[in-house]
């Protein structure tokens, strides 16, 4: 993370903390779209969508360009790799732990069941 500005990093995370904004990024990864398209797609008002796009834009994740009356959005210069990488490695650690925890819990369930069977006899 050394070569990476942490204020930028945090702006990206704030932008990504919202499910609609993550959806918008997914959508733009497939192709450019206007604010109107995005509002329709996510069943939102234009004003609501403009706000989300504004947050993504200030994090550098999206750029917009107005031609005539249409504002087109596309993926910004800042790619998500760093953020994704951070999340991915954190998740990896916890996934591995939780899988092991599942096994421990299964064992506890089995023991409890066995005790219950004994009791009822």
């Amino acid at each position: 993370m050394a070569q990476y500005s942490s204020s930028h990093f945090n702006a990206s995370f704030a932008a990504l903390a919202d499910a609609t904004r993550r959806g918008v990024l997914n959508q733009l990864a497939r192709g450019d779209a206007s604010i109107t398209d995005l509002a329709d797609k996510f069943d939102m008002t234009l004003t609501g969508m403009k706000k989300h796009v504004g947050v993504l834009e200030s994090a550098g994740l999206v750029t917009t360009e107005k031609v005539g009356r249409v504002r087109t959005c596309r993926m910004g210069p800042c790619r998500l790799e760093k953020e994704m990488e951070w999340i991915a490695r954190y998740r990896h650690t916890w996934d591995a732990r939780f899988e092991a925890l599942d096994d421990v819990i299964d064992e506890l369930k089995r023991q409890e069941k066995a005790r219950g069977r004994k009791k009822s006899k």
Partner: protein
Amino acid sequence: MVAKKVNESQRTTVQRQSEREVVVTRTFDAPARLVFEAWSKPELFKKWWVPRSMGMTLRSCEMDVRIGGKYRLVFGEDAVNTMAFFGSYLEVVPNQRIVWTNEESGDAGSVTTVTFEERDGKTLLVMSELYPTKESLDAAGTGAQEASHETFEQLDELLGELSAR
């Protein structure tokens, strides 16, 4: 290899909630009392906290899970090269909630909160780690990555050797 059935609701989610906080959620197919038991009894805790894929050895695990109680986990390959993680429990509500401090990195450590919410016999676990500064959270991620990268490389090597036989 048979693909493991992954229930969508059972997947681990990770979110950076703010610049100082990261939140992990996961659902377990068991009542909260069992999930809590696995988090609060050292003999159970040590079975899962360091899965083999992490490539670390847990040498000892002491936990006194009650308000004001302390814990100490010692990792290391041998008795000389060890690393200890320690702190104390700020809140303990059986089957519902555990809050503890992480004090190994000095006075300004992170605080971990785990809650267990039971619904229809399943338990939603929400774990939050609140760091004193955004830099310490970023660094926490970095350390884990480097460690797991190394582990993967070792694993790749090992798998390579095995398949070359």
